[in-house]
């Protein structure tokens, strides 16, 4: 049986606004489970889930694992290092082996764009993309949307600027599509060498100066600037990046309104974001992490065939 969001969650681009709202609405009741003394409901009891991480990850992997465990699923973590992948097994063979073990769901993080779809096309199990190359990271996009919605209410007509290395960011793409589908005006700001050449044709406003983005936006989603980008010659130095594009409290003070600050982490303090911004009163960075678990519970629940209306009931009476 196909869930209201399809067999898999591979990307936000193909989803409708209604499907995204359904996931966010479903996440609401799941937030509360994590606040309980005993953080566990039996919703996915008997389901087996493999967390297949071909790239290292701390936050996302742990967040998925908590979401799965709090829903009582049986989970197995596979990291690429120390597995058959390191022995040269192809992704298609990995997929077939997983299928042969009759698992229910796979959460996959992979360095190659399209890898989650590749897997989903070849196995019956539900596949959740936990980040594929520079393509999408849909659950990150969803948790960013949920966090913004918590603080802004209806997002339609709001303005959000994605700042930094959009070119190499799967978080940026998932945010871009998710925000647009909920009626948000999307801006991007960063050096042109780190923006896709065709970015304007995706229907976003491009800011060449961070000051303009701050003046325009209701919220900033500040991407991590990876050190490799400097070594690959996309920017001259992290120091100059901070001076030209860094989000600092001095720049934020000039804004006509208080801006909400998001960052998918891990942060480079003093590069794309200054510590007093990250730790400041308008930072939602830890709220994002909290919401990450709830959103992932919602996605797991929906893909497993859960009914959105029953999500409230599904969380059970709970042992408080």
């Amino acid at each position, binding site marked *: 049986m196909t869930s209201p969001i399809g067999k898999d969650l591979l990307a936000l681009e193909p989803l409708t606004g209604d499907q995204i709202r359904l996931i966010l609405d479903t996440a609401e009741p799941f937030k509360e489970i994590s606040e309980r003394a005993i953080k566990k409901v039996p919703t996915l009891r008997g389901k087996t889930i493999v967390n297949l991480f071909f790239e290292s990850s701390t936050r996302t992997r742990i967040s998925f694992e908590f979401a799965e465990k709090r829903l009582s699923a049986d989970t197995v973590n596979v990291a690429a290092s120390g597995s058959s992948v390191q022995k040269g097994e192809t992704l298609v063979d990995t997929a077939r082996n997983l299928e042969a073990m009759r698992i229910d769901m796979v959460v996959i993080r992979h360095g190659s764009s*399209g890898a989650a779809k*590749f897997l989903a096309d070849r196995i019956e199990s539900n596949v959740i993309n936990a980040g594929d*190359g*520079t*393509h999408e990271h849909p659950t990150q996009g969803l948790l960013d949307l949920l966090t913004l919605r918590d603080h802004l209410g209806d997002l339609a007509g709001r303005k959000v600027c994605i700042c930094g290395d959009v070119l190499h960011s*799967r978080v940026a793409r998932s945010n871009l599509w998710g925000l647009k589908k909920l009626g948000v005006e999307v801006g991007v700001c960063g050096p042109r060498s780190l923006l896709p*050449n*065709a970015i304007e044709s*995706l229907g976003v406003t491009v800011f060449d100066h961070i000051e303009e983005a701050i003046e325009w936006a209701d919220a900033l989603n500040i991407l991590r600037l990876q050190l490799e980008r400097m070594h690959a010659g996309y920017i001259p130095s992290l120091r100059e990046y901070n001076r030209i594009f860094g989000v600092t409290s001095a720049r934020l003070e000039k804004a006509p309104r208080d801006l909400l600050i998001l960052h998918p982490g891990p942060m480079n303090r003093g590069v794309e974001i200054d510590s007093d911004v990250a730790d400041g009163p308008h930072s939602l960075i830890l709220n994002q992490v909290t919401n990450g678990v709830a959103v992932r519970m919602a996605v797991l629940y929906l893909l497993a065939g859960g009914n959105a209306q029953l999500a409230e009931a599904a969380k059970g009476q709970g042992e408080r």
Partner: protein
Amino acid sequence: MSIARRVPNVEPAAPTLLRGGRLLDPSTGLDSPGDLFIVDGRIEHVGDRLESTPDGAEVMDCTGLIVSPGFIDVHCHLREPGREDVETVATGARAAAAGGFTAICAMPNTSPVTDNQAAVGFIVRQAQLANAARVYPIGAISVGQMGEKLAEFGEMVGAGAVALSDDGKPVVSAQLMRTALEYARTFNVPVIDHCEEPTLADGGAMNEGIVSARLGLKGIPAEAEEIMAIRDILLARRTGGHVHLAHMSTRGSVELIRWGKERGINVTAEVCPHHISLTEERVLGYDTNAKMNPPLRTAADVEALREAVADGTIDVVATDHAPHHYDEKEREFADAPNGIVGLETALAVVVTNLVVPGLISWSTLVDRMACTPARIFHLPGGTLRRGTVADITVFDPDAEWTVDPTTFLSKGRNTPYAGMALRGRNRCTIVEGRIVYRASVT
């Protein structure tokens, strides 16, 4: 199993009468129904219907079919030596014959590289044994295709090479390209370049544009091709050498070639069937059979390339036939190899995308696939003139068929056209009077 000494299995060809077809040969301006009679591998008669069937002649009814000079593909990869599991000279030559090609030119990016007279001679011998389409070797420009030291053009041409190329890799050094164009003049063979500025194209998996931005795949900008195309055109102007630009894929390249030709520069160019039929949108879904280099481009590029075939700015259609093992294509997009097979779909893709919509005539199709390749690469064939070698293709212009890769004679199955309905199909391929392919359909 012992390796037996093999002798080409060439029986003397029987006289053959191709009766009642549409004789179409732009090289002589011929376009009329009639008969073509082949004796001893030569065209004995072409034109009016013969009163009676000559004694001992095999008669083939060609009613409703086009009889044209045999198609010549100036760009394919046969993988032998080195990857005989993927394709051999023999299987490639048979696939070519099935697709209507009487001759194909094999690129030298084999393992080891075809960069010396012995390696060229090996391809020639394997082609003789295959007894299918002719296979002409292309020699490497540089030793080992390393882009440093000029290979021995003279000896390779002496052994049977018809052109020179480091295809698969661009000639990065402008000085090497200049020298190659100068040195090749003695031997009167074209120097073929795979135009790709390597620092711009580095790591790219598809066209740079809106689709690459959406898919999160590293793009190859059109300028990576165009910068090298204009460099090569300018070097051809400087040296007077003949530069042939392989697999042109962008609107800008077309404009640059036009610019060069208007100035009398000795530049010729080819386009592949996939670049005049598919766009970058085909990559959506990460289908590795839509991955090739140069990549599928935009609809505007496709339109410009189609016009360029029609007006002659692009001289020839060439397949860039590139078989790969299915395991190698069945993987993550960025890691999959570039290229698709093309010999057995080329005719139908060109018919369906250029002739059927009225962009080119049947005569222009034959010119771009047979006459002009022969002329610019100085090869036999490309004409139905009486007395010339009988390299002939007989094809059905109206046949409708659905591409089924499992029926390919090539070992490669990597095609983006699987399941697609196309029009136009080869019926019979004749090389030096011998029937090397005949369709089983009626």
